[in-house]
């Protein structure tokens, strides 16, 4: 430590130290000389010097002892590098800017990827946490499921349909021995009353072990205990830090107070840490403000066919995922024997929680990261191009340096120092740019990308950028250094500086250009494929008219509206009030409007062979079809007379009729669904894409909202078709709702158009990003081609001058240069085409109704890039024909 401080003292006062040493040595020699002359030695001064040895060498060796020699040399190199770079500000600016663009985009995308996928989940031992779901072959019918985060997701590998877990199965899975604990949870927004205006607040309904599975303890109060979730227990709630701070003003006496949710007074037993996010919040980006114990009704606990909840579990420390899956499979085999009806074709599956949360976005993000990586490569190639051109222009300078005794390694070091300096500048500028781009990305990104909000530039991002920059500096500094320093001092001094561009340099520049074109081609193709997919998606007809339709959510709490009939009466009372508002054309209500969730159930046709099938079910009001703009194909619509007590009726869509009645008339036929409830088909309506633009048209069943015993899911969505701008009636609708129930909030208010825009937001985001990457890549490639050709034309001025002097036609000269350019471009396009074919297959899952080898896209991309590249070569080519032979030859 003291040694270090002495070293530092030396560093800062090394001039003084050197002077001291010089004085000391001088004195020594002088004294020795005097002694010699006293002893009568001839030429005492010389003898003293000889006795002392090489003074400079000892001085150097002394200062080496202080350990700063290397550093001093570096400082010297850096100074020299800065001096030489600042002599060509244009080159430096272009190089730094190019690097900054590439690095900026890359760090921005990386910081998103880092936040979303790489950073560990904020729970203790996150590697032990798994998400669990159940999956079944598409043909399985004996179940009913709705809602939930893991609903209706087709497993890419197995082709099985993913569904939520049946509460009844959880205890069996827990008994597999692979887990220390398991907990279920389910999104459950509730109406908050008694704190300001009534509001619908998002929360999770959780089994009591939820927090202990995650390893989270409240900052105040306690976690749930066994018994809190029994239906007879006192209602309790655990609040998020945000709820406590923002809604309750951070009241320190909050424990023991009550909060009214859906009309139930719940005692606050705990407040969660500020940093806590539930897995469901990470997955959909919606903050969960409260957690209530899930008191599952006993019929739900016994019905193995009801799939309603998401499940997380903590693995035993020594049990890997694969082993745990094996143990679950054993449990499944037993359940399949015990409960063949419900469990024969229902398979539990687990995946690491972190992976599962981001499953829907990870491919897209990896693709974007790869794309931005390609972009960095292109910028690197571009900078290498620039460095090489610059190095060639410096041949004379280097020859002089070599001639006066600089070692080759010293020159290589100079080059590398310069390129590292550029890299450092590019890195700094790139991080700055990355910060700006990240902010832009976050503003543009759809809000439902998991964990996106935690994006920040942490040290890994900086390390990542610095690492890439250093690599760039080294790799792309060494090549030019190696080439440039191969000059033979004498040879190149003898010849003119102009002609000294070696063949190998031209070849290098050529191959860099080819690489640039090839890389751009890959990016452009990727962007092109996504863009075409996006266009295809946007052109998809949903089958209903979403324009001028307002969708909103009215969740009636069970405490106040105890029966399905109570809830129906509310909506029936609301309908005429809203219908009477100015600007309202029609009104409809349903469990869920299209693209806002679904309810899927199995059913059995009455006719032989009595196949079991699956369809989407919705309970809808008579006005639903008109409001959404769906047309009646056959039969009749629901009327106000389809009520409890009248014969149970259903309407189906064309897909249903096609699939199950094979062109025959479904009217008058019936089927059984859920717990053997029977309905008769009275009408057929047109097909819609219920799941959104990218979803398939599925068989749909519509039940009459008036026949409340037919459906379990509550009516909650309300649709209003207006004459003008639908957002203008929002307040009037809210007033009507409050007039009926002053405690009832309306939520999730969106025009249908907005709902659709949101559903394609992620695709739009990916396309936008990749298109920007591709545009930058093409721009860089164009600049690169232009630069290289300009340079090579400049190098050949002499040769071109002679050709022109000898009578070459200008057109011939242009053609010659263009041939050279054309060769490079064609090679680049060919390699890029191969690369694109190879790489875009990873995009396949992001494409819509097209293959990653779509010939049209490839043709357009080749055409575009080729045209841009040829255009970039035109200017240098034309310039080459204008070479004045006299000027050119005089320069020789």
């Amino acid at each position, binding site marked *: 430590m003291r*040694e270090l401080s002495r070293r530092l003292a030396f560093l800062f006062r090394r001039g003084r130290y050197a002077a001291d040493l010089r004085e*000391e*040595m001088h*004195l*020594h020699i002088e004294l020795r000389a005097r002694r010699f002359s006293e002893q009568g030695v001839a030429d005492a001064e010389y003898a003293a010097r000889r006795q*002392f040895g090489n*003074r400079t060498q*000892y001085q150097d060796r002394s*200062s080496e002892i202080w350990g700063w020699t290397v550093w001093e040399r570096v400082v010297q190199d850096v100074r020299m590098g800065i001096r030489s770079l600042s002599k060509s500000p244009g080159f430096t600016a272009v190089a730094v800017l190019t690097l900054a663009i590439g690095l900026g985009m890359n760090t921005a995308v990386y910081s998103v990827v880092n936040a979303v996928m790489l950073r560990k989940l904020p729970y203790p031992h996150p590697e032990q946490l798994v998400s669990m779901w159940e999956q079944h072959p598409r043909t399985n019918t004996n179940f009913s499921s709705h809602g939930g985060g893991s609903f209706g997701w087709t497993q890419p590998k197995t082709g099985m349909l993913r569904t939520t877990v049946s509460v009844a199965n959880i205890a069996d899975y827990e008994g597999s021995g692979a887990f220390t604990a398991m907990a279920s949870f389910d999104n459950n927004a509730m109406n908050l009353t008694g704190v300001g205006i009534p509001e619908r607040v998002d929360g999770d309904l959780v089994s009591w072990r939820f927090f202990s599975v995650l390893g989270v303890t409240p900052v105040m109060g306690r976690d749930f205990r066994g018994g809190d979730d029994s239906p007879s227990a006192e209602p309790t709630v655990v609040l998020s830090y945000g709820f406590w701070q923002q809604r309750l003003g951070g009241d320190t006496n909050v424990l023991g107070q009550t909060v009214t949710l859906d009309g139930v007074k719940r005692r606050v037993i705990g407040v969660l840490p500020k940093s806590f996010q539930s897995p469901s919040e990470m997955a959909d980006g919606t903050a969960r403000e409260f957690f209530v114990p899930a008191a599952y009704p006993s019929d739900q606990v016994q019905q193995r066919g009801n799939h309603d909840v998401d499940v997380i579990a903590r693995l035993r420390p020594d049990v890997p995922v694969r082993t745990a899956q094996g143990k679950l499979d054993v449990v499944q085999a037993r359940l399949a024997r015990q409960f063949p009806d419900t469990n024969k074709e229902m398979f539990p599956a687990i995946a690491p929680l972190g992976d599962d949360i981001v499953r829907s976005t990870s491919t897209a993000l990896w693709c974007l990261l790869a794309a931005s990586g390609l972009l960095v490569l292109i910028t690197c190639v571009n900078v290498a191009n620039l460095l090489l051109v610059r190095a060639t222009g410096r041949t004379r300078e280097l020859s002089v340096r070599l001639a006066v005794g600089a070692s080759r390694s010293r020159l290589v070091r100079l080059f590398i120092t310069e390129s590292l300096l550029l890299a450092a500048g590019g890195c700094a500028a790139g991080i700055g740019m990355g910060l700006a781009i990240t902010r832009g990305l976050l503003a543009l990104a759809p809000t439902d990308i998991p964990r996106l909000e935690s994006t920040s530039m942490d040290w890994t991002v900086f390390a990542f950028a610095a690492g890439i920059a250093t690599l760039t500096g080294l790799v792309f500094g060494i090549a030019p250094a190696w080439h440039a320093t191969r000059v033979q001092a004498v040879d190149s001094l003898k010849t003119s500086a102009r002609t000294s561009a070696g063949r190998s340099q031209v070849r290098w520049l050529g191959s860099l250009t080819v690489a640039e074109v090839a890389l751009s081609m890959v990016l452009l193709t990727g962007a092109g494929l996504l863009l075409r997919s996006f266009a295809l998606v946007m052109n998809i007809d949903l089958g209903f008219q979403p324009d001028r339709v307002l969708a909103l959510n009215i969740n009636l709490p069970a405490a106040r509206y105890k029966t399905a009939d109570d809830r129906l009466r509310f909506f029936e009372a609301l309908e005429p009030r809203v219908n009477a508002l100015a600007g309202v054309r029609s009104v409809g209500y349903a469990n869920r409007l299209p693209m806002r969730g679904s309810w899927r159930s199995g059913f059995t046709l009455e006719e032989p062979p009595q196949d079991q099938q699956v369809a989407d079910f919705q309970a809808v009001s008579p006005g639903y079809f008109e409001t959404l703009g769906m047309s009646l194909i056959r039969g009749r619509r629901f009327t106000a007379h389809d009520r409890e007590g009248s014969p149970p009726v259903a309407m189906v869509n064309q897909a249903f009729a096609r699939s199950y009645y094979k062109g025959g008339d479904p009217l008058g036929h019936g089927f059984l669904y859920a717990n053997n409830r029977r309905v008769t088909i009275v009408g057929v309506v047109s097909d819609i894409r219920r799941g959104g633009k990218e979803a398939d048209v599925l068989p749909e069943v519509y039940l009459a909202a008036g026949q409340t015993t037919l459906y379990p899911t509550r009516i909650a969505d309300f649709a209003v078709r207006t004459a003008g701008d639908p957002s203008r009636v929002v307040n009037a609708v809210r007033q009507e709702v409050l007039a009926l129930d002053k405690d009832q909030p309306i939520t999730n208010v969106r025009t249908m158009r907005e709902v659709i825009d949101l559903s394609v937001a992620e695709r739009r985001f990916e396309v936008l990003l990749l298109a920007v990457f591709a545009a930058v890549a093409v721009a860089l490639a164009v600049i690169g081609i232009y630069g290289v050709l300009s340079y090579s034309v400049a190098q050949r001025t002499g040769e071109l001058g002679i050709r022109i002097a000898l009578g070459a036609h200008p057109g011939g000269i242009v053609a010659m240069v263009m041939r050279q350019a054309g060769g490079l471009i064609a090679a680049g396009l060919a390699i890029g085409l191969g690369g694109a074919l190879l790489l875009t297959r990873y995009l396949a899952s992001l494409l819509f109704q097209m293959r990653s080898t779509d010939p049209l896209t490839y043709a357009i991309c080749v055409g575009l890039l080729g045209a841009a590249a040829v255009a970039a070569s035109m200017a240098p080519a034309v310039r080459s024909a204008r070479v004045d032979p006299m000027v050119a030859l005089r320069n020789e």
Partner: protein
Amino acid sequence: MSRSQRDEIPSGTLDLLILKTLARHGELHGFEIADSIQSTSEDILQVEEGSLYPALQRMLLKGWLKGEWGKTQENRRARYYTLTSDGRKQLQNEMDRYGRVSNAIARVLEAAS
């Protein structure tokens, strides 16, 4: 004075000699150290005198020595070196080591004869 009799200082012992010299005389400048080593060894041990200075610098860095500027009798500026307590410890270490090594060498040589 007969130059042919002079020997190079064995490598690694220069530090020991400097430390010992300073321990004996207290405060010396560079020339005096060189001179003292030479005369005490009765002119047998001979250094290329310049090599003294890197050694002094290293010992300054290690904190074994302290250097302070003063005046010679002829009123010339010179840096006078003194031992620090670390230097004294180091001297003891080096002496011990030297004793061990030279004993060992002596034993080997005796056995051989």
